[in-house]
């Protein structure tokens, strides 16, 4: 691996736009071949974007969640698989930054993530538990200074390419399913035996294969806080905001294509409004709704961030869940509108207006932690939580 030590020129967005150009050039082949977007990830490393969230004193750039969300949307417009990989990596980084700060091992590891531009993978999904990330079957075994874990991890995106995997388990052999910890395992501390190959409808470049994970590492690599806190206080917000930002990027790119299509048609026959024009207006309103939801969630997170009680509160969890539900559903409507606007040129592959990849990638949104599961959790909370229905405040 090449280690780039020079800070690239330009602000974060300019750096990501250069990555996006490279990612866009390879997006179709990444999708067709279901291969890892190596060119885009190499470019992310060359622009030193992997460690931006790490505190500056550990060699990162202390980037905010809003800045990272913006970058996710820029890359999402170019190649959703690359963007989702970047988002998932940053979600894992947020667990380290928010909950690993006091622990010497995790501090040193964060410095390595920034210095060596390491790619972090995630293993929460487990055979028998599905997407219920607050339950585990597998348990970590701590023996003196060493911990060992075996997990039937049915989905680990870019498992083969990850430099480290952050993995959840029960905290010990007798622990309840919800009594979980998260542990960092470095690539040379685990083996992955492939159980499923990711031949999927969309998001094909995330290479979300299934594996049996077997790891052994120093026990100090277990994150010092219970996973319940990590999930509530950093993962929930980062996952739903950064995923939504990627999905927004996919929809925004589809929208830009549809608008260009209608503008071209309008120039050709200026006497009559093109048939798709009204749908562009409708898609514009939907897209603005998604954007507003993400911006509102970023604000809510900024406000809650300094207050652990607020971060673990039901109102915050409901708000983040609602963002995920709204954005994952609305992007499908937007892209479908764009498909109707551009017609057969959207339906066919290989045209400047092709939207097949967008549509397929966007369908992952409602399954990535199933919306039904999330709605189920939210509905439970709404049995007791009274939603704040005021407009401002």
């Amino acid at each position, binding site marked *: 691996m090449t280690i780039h030590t020079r800070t690239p020129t330009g602000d974060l967005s300019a750096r990501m736009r250069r990555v996006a150009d490279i990612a866009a050039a390879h997006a179709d082949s990444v999708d067709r071949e279901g291969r890892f977007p190596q060119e885009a990830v190499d470019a992310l490393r060359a622009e030193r974007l992997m460690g931006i969230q790490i505190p500056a004193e550990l060699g990162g750039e202390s980037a905010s969640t809003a800045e990272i969300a913006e970058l996710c949307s820029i890359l999402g417009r170019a190649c959703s698989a690359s963007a989702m990989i970047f988002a998932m990596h940053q979600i894992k980084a947020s667990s380290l930054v928010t909950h690993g700060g006091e622990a010497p091992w995790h501090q040193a590891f964060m410095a390595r993530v920034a210095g060596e531009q390491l790619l972090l993978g995630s293993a929460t999904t487990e055979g028998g538990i599905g997407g219920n990330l607050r339950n585990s079957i597998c348990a970590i075994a701590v023996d003196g200074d060493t911990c060992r874990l075996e997990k039937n991890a049915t989905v680990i995106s870019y498992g083969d390419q990850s430099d480290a995997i952050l993995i959840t388990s029960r905290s010990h052999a007798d622990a309840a399913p919800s009594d979980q910890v998260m542990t960092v395992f470095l690539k040379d501390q685990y083996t992955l035996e492939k159980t499923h190959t990711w031949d999927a409808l969309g998001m094909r470049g995330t290479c979300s294969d299934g594996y049996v994970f077997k790891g052994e590492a120093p026990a100090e690599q277990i994150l010092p806080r219970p996973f319940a806190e990590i999930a509530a206080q950093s993962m929930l917000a980062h996952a739903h905001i950064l995923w939504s930002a990627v999905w927004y990027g996919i929809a925004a790119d589809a929208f830009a294509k549809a608008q260009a299509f209608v503008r071209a048609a309008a120039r050709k026959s200026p006497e009559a409004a093109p048939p798709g024009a009204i749908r562009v207006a409708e898609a514009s309103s939907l897209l603005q709704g998604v954007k507003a939801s993400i911006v509102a969630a970023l604000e809510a997170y900024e406000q809650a961030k300094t207050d652990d009680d607020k971060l673990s509160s039901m109102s915050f969890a409901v708000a983040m869940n609602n963002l995920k539900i709204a954005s994952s559903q609305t992007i499908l409507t937007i892209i479908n509108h764009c498909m109707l606007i551009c017609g057969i040129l959207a339906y066919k592959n290989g045209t400047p207006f092709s939207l097949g990849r967008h549509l397929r990638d966007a369908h992952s949104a409602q399954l990535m932690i199933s919306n039904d599961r999330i709605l189920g959790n939210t509905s439970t909370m709404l049995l007791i*939580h009274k939603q704040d229905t005021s407009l401002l405040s």
Partner: protein
Amino acid sequence: MATAETIRDIVAKHGKLPVEVSTLADDGDLYAAGLSSFASVQLMLAIEEEFDIEFPENRLNRKTFQTIAAIAEAVDELTRDQQAA
């Protein structure tokens, strides 16, 4: 705290814990003992019913329901506040 025993009974009934509630200390972590988020809501509803109180939004978090002692403290405080109001 007068309420702790009643709360213990409610936890036994609604907490759906994989362990006997009598084995838990008042300051034992209920989540570590297996309290799920769904059961914690059932628990909150039952406590509101029993003590005729309403948990305000700033109390609807993990910490309030972490231990029997924490629940008892919240209930005592809320009963006091709601009687005074």
